[in-house]
């Protein structure tokens, strides 16, 4: 290996670095783990499609040297559903934000999970809308400060892993950006899994969220993850709390269920056989 080139360079799109993310932002770590996973499992990268919605993390699809598409806000999963169903050979990975996937795009998430469409979803949860300057969203903790909760947040947040599990996802995990090894392992697993898979990645947004919540740097936020994270594999995602004291992480669900894609192709085959029989 050349000494002056990064080992992942060929997995990153030419001419797109440096990325737009702030100093101390965890999105780059998610990108890093994702391309490492691509490299490690030696997947046919030509079949991988990375789809993202709008937001800071939404820019990720532009950085991977794969086919990639940057949709409108919230529609990444619906777009990926169309691409995957149209060409079953594709590996469609959605990487998007907590606001994108669970506020404006929440309906697509629960329905894709219910159908068990074979797409893999990675959510960068930074507890707020980073791109628009730090408003509260569906994952902002109660009482947290954001630009639109100047008196503290009075809304209850979603527990994303519980939501994913209840909606029917066949793989559900949560890690933080400090859990780089485990996160990479999870990504490798879902890249090789069939069915609607979900990985929540808790990620620092020091610039916009941390600053208003007594964690002004990426290091402070990562140290929160370090002290609060508790690995509880195979535990009930309903109990997977996120609080100042505790962040329950782990692989909660890894199950098998016929995928929509499989049932669809089976049905199509039967219909076509019946027609041939009629002739």
């Amino acid at each position, binding site marked *: 290996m050349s000494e002056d080139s990064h080992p992942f360079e060929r997995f990153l799109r030419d001419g797109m670095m440096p990325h737009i993310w702030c100093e101390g932002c965890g999105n780059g770590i998610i990108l890093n783990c994702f391309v490492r996973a691509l490299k490690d499992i030696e997947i046919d990268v030509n079949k991988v499609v990375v789809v993202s919605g709008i937001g800071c993390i939404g820019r990720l699809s532009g950085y991977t040297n794969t086919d990639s598409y940057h949709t409108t806000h919230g529609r990444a999963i619906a777009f990926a559903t169309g691409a995957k169903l149209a060409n079953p050979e*594709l590996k469609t990975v959605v990487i998007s934000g907590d606001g994108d996937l669970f506020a404006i795009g929440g*309906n697509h998430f629960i329905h894709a999970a219910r159908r068990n469409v074979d797409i893999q979803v990675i959510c960068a949860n930074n507890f707020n809308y980073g791109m628009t300057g730090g408003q509260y969203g569906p994952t902002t903790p109660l009482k947290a400060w954001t630009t639109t909760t100047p008196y503290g947040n009075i809304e209850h947040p979603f527990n994303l892993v519980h939501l994913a599990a209840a909606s029917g996802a066949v793989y559900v995990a949560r890690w933080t950006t400090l859990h780089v090894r485990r996160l990479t392992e999870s990504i490798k697993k879902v890249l090789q899994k069939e069915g609607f898979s979900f990985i929540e990645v808790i990620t620092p947004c020091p610039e916009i969220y941390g600053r208003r919540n007594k964690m002004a740097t990426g290091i402070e936020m990562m140290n929160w993850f370090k002290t609060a994270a508790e690995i509880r594999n195979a535990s009930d995602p309903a109990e997977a709390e996120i609080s100042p004291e505790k962040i329950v992480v782990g692989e909660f669900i890894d199950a098998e269920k016929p995928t929509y894609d499989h049932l*669809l192709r089976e049905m199509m085959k039967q219909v076509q056989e019946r027609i041939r029989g009629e002739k």
Partner: protein
Amino acid sequence: MTQERTVLTGKHFMQGDIACAEGAIAAGCRFFAGYPITPATEIAERMARRLPEVDGVYVQMEDELGSMAAVIGASYAGVKSMTATSGPGFSLMQENIGLAVMTETPCVVVNIMRGGPSTGQPTKPGQQDVMQARWGSHGDYEIIALAPSSVQEMFDLTIEAFNLSEIYRVPVFVLADEIVGHMWERVTIPSENAIKRVNRKRPRTLPEKYVPFLPDRDLVPPMASFGEGYRFYATGLTHDETGHPRTDTAKAQQELVQRLCDKIRKNREKIVRVSANMLEDAEVMVVAYGTTSRSAMSAVREAREKGFKAGLLRLITLWPFPDKEIAELAKRVRAIVVPEMNCGQIVREVERAAKETSVIFMPKLGEEPHRPVEILDAIQRGSYK
């Protein structure tokens, strides 16, 4: 797939919505994503039954926002794709119609128009979405919309819509009113070989050399599909020809948006279609589209019998608007009559094109289309202008 299942060659007694679905399948459409809505549901139902037979995918999405996004995804995966809806769903689709325009996605959107605004009159006809079709998504763009007026045209123009969308890499609308959608008529479906199908231009370079949004001389860039090794990036952000976002320069915005408009504007002669009837010596011209043009045709015939020199210009293409064609004819007639099932939409375009020539507008809302006698009355009034 067996030929007779792909194209139902022969004579049929068919509903407009069903003919539209059959036209799509004959055009090569193999992906449909939609959400049920009156009066377009029959298209979805037909597609749900027919697509699996021809190795195509039908998926019922959770809403029209998702349907439109899925259609774009499927098109980028290399499959001709469509959706069908009516007013309320068409409103929800506007978001990703803009995305399809921006990322130059071939696809077809059928709108079987009912009465609006909002939930309006689900089972009654309207022509109230023709301006929304032109301007519904934010930002500047040009679009193509076709207006069938018979069941036969539901079949023919749906094929045409696919071909135009593939040629220009733009969403194409089939704007039919509820009457055309629900009407039953005789349809002749040609043989498989007689159907003209156009496919999108493919890259002529190696993947390493592929510049995804670099246009040819017709202003349309060749299109690769996902999974072929081209590894390209497409975004709804303003981008340059490499597809990379360029949100901070005026140049990128000017070049891209201007080209998106120009690829339709500069090719308008190849796109625009009208049908001129008895216009050679006409003194009064009726301009109409969809169901309304059928009443107009009867009215023109009756007027001729009564000795009035009337003619009909039936608009097949609504967008880009046939303004040149209207402007030419307007110079030769005394008056133009425009009946529409709305409070005045296409009439504004006609007025713009007609300049000095007087325009008599006949609005219609509610249950019924215009009766020929109403249009006849307007023709008579126009004759004395």
